[in-house]
């Protein structure tokens, strides 16, 4: 009869332990370094800094284009101010739209990354649950195997006892019966029953 399985035979190998440790170290590094960066990006994406910069730029572009090369004749053209006013409005509109685009892209980028992490976490949970499932299955299989082995052992003990009794007492009624019964059992097994 074989010995009982030893728990230490089922311990993780050094390679597996190291792999888990490295994975955990990388994970900790990621949380320490990148989590704060993503949070900063989230806060920055809420600010109006880009919008104000782009508006300043739009204003400067308009003024440079329309007043960088002044002349007396231009100052006397009374329609220029109205046209310049429209030009400024157009440039500011473009600045506002671009700032909105940048803000939205940044915000959805932050959310996508955060959600990606959450999605990864969910996938991880499914994987963790699969691990737990295989453990549960293994436990159930092991319990079942132990129960089956106990029953088989009981049967074997009974058979061995009857065989021995038959060998020792072949002339007795019970010994003869056990011999015939065991022989019939062996024939039945050999026939595939």
């Amino acid at each position, binding site marked *: 009869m074989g010995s009982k399985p030893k728990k230490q035979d089922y311990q993780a190998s050094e390679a597996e332990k190291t792999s888990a440790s490295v994975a955990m170290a990388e994970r900790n590094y990621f949380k320490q370094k990148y989590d704060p960066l993503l949070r900063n990006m989230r806060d920055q994406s809420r600010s109006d800094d880009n919008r104000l910069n782009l508006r300043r730029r739009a204003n400067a572009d308009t003024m440079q284009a329309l007043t960088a090369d002044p002349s007396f004749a231009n*100052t006397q053209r009374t329609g220029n101010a109205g046209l310049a006013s429209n030009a400024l409005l157009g440039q500011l509109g473009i600045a506002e739209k671009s700032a*909105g685009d940048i803000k939205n892209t940044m*915000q959805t980028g932050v959310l996508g990354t*955060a959600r990606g992490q959450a999605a990864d976490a969910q996938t991880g949970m499914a994987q963790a649950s699969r691990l737990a499932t295989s453990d549960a299955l293994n436990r159930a299989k092991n319990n079942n195997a132990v129960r089956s082995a106990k029953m088989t052992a009981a049967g074997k003990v009974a058979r061995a006892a009857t065989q021995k009794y038959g060998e020792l007492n072949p002339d007795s009624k019970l010994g003869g019966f056990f011999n015939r019964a065991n022989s019939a059992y062996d024939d039945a097994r050999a026939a595939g029953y």
Partner: protein
Amino acid sequence: MYEGRLSEFGISNPQAGALPEVKDPEAAYAAITRGDYLDYVKKYRGFEEELINKSQTDTSLIDAAREDSAAAPDIMRQSAARNVSRYGTQLTPAQLQQQERGLQRQGTLGSIQSVADARIAQTENNQRLLSDLINIGQGVNRSSLSQLGSEAANANSRRRAYDNAKAQSKAQTYSTVGSLASTAILAAVFL
């Protein structure tokens, strides 16, 4: 706090330079997964709701266009006055009147156009934001459904394994008891 939770699962020295020891990788994995989700809820759930709301209600471009169209004529009036003053001269009352009319006319037209442009730009920006959010949401939904499917398959497999084990155990018990009983009966008959 998060590291504190990890230590409950046998992960030591998570902050140290040396490699941390992971005694129970499965529990650590579960703790990290739960921690990630809770971190998302704490740090990004409000942000996400803010963005969803913004994609449907944002009017910042239109508001800015309205404010700018009121302010732009004044800015250009002052700019024109500064340019004239640089030449040491000034506009006649008739020229000033003409300039004012031009500013008013262009200001009105410019205001109408910039607000109309801003409406289009706003709609475009909001729709793009909404579609980006929907894409993100779909990705999350897809992975959630896949996860749920996986859990359902696991549960089904566990139940079937349990049923099989029960049936196998019962069959084994009946078989052994039956063979012992038949041996005993036959023994009694021959005795």
